[in-house]
């Protein structure tokens, strides 16, 4: 009798294991909390890239308004002629959480994307694109007339 019970327990354990770990779900849960921590831009950059060198380039084309009347909606457009970009980071210098977004792109995605940002105050918006072990960077200053970390 205990044999069947052992069998039953083993099978239940296997099933539990399969449901939780083997059967693939959408790959959620990779949100990198440490990169979205509050802090200064320097701290965030250090967490993200360690002390890696940046290559400043105007091959990353950033379109942002020079003056944002409403910091709650600041449209950003990013285009680039650089090849093999794997990741794009958008950083806002003076926001409490400097990292706004990290995009992981497969090769079939063109570097031509846009989003809308919230900006607390006038500051630099920095875009970093990674390709292999190289980090390309470009930035734009945006003057914010009404701060908009509010919704």
């Amino acid at each position, binding site marked *: 009798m205990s044999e069947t019970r052992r069998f039953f327990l083993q099978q239940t354990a296997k099933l539990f294991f399969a449901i939780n770990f083997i059967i693939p779900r959408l790959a*959620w849960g990779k949100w990198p909390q440490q990169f979205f921590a509050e802090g200064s831009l320097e701290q965030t950059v250090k967490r993200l890239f360690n002390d890696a060198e940046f290559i400043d380039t105007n091959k990353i084309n950033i379109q942002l308004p020079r003056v944002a009347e409403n910091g709650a909606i600041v449209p950003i457009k990013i285009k680039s002629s650089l090849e093999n970009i794997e990741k794009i980071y958008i950083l806002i210098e003076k*926001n409490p*959480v400097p990292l706004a977004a990290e995009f992981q792109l*497969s090769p079939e995605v063109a570097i031509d994307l846009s989003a809308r*940002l919230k900006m607390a105050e006038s500051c630099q918006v920095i875009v970093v694109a990674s390709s292999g072990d190289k980090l390309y960077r470009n930035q734009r200053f945006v003057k914010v007339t009404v701060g908009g970390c509010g919704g």
Partner: protein
Amino acid sequence: MSSIRIRSKLSGNKVQIRILIAHPMENGRNRDPETEKLIPAHFIQELVLSHNDQPVIQASLGGSISKNPFFTFVLKNARAGDKITVSWIDNQGISDTRDHFIKPI
């Protein structure tokens, strides 16, 4: 009704995808103007765009993305009829997903 609206515009073999998501994107630092209490953080953390069931864009987002986020992306090799799926999950565990089929020109 789904929180996600997807539009696509095909030109040649490139397609521009526009995504609008209804979401408060609260970063947790705003106060309710009436009660003066902090509004708890509620923002989308991950966004995935799949092209014919293959994830091609995986984005991690923070509270610095505007309320009702709007994104556009361009895919290089797309055809009419291709399936685009957009999914998101927020910091409260709420998620949504929507399929879209690229229309012919």
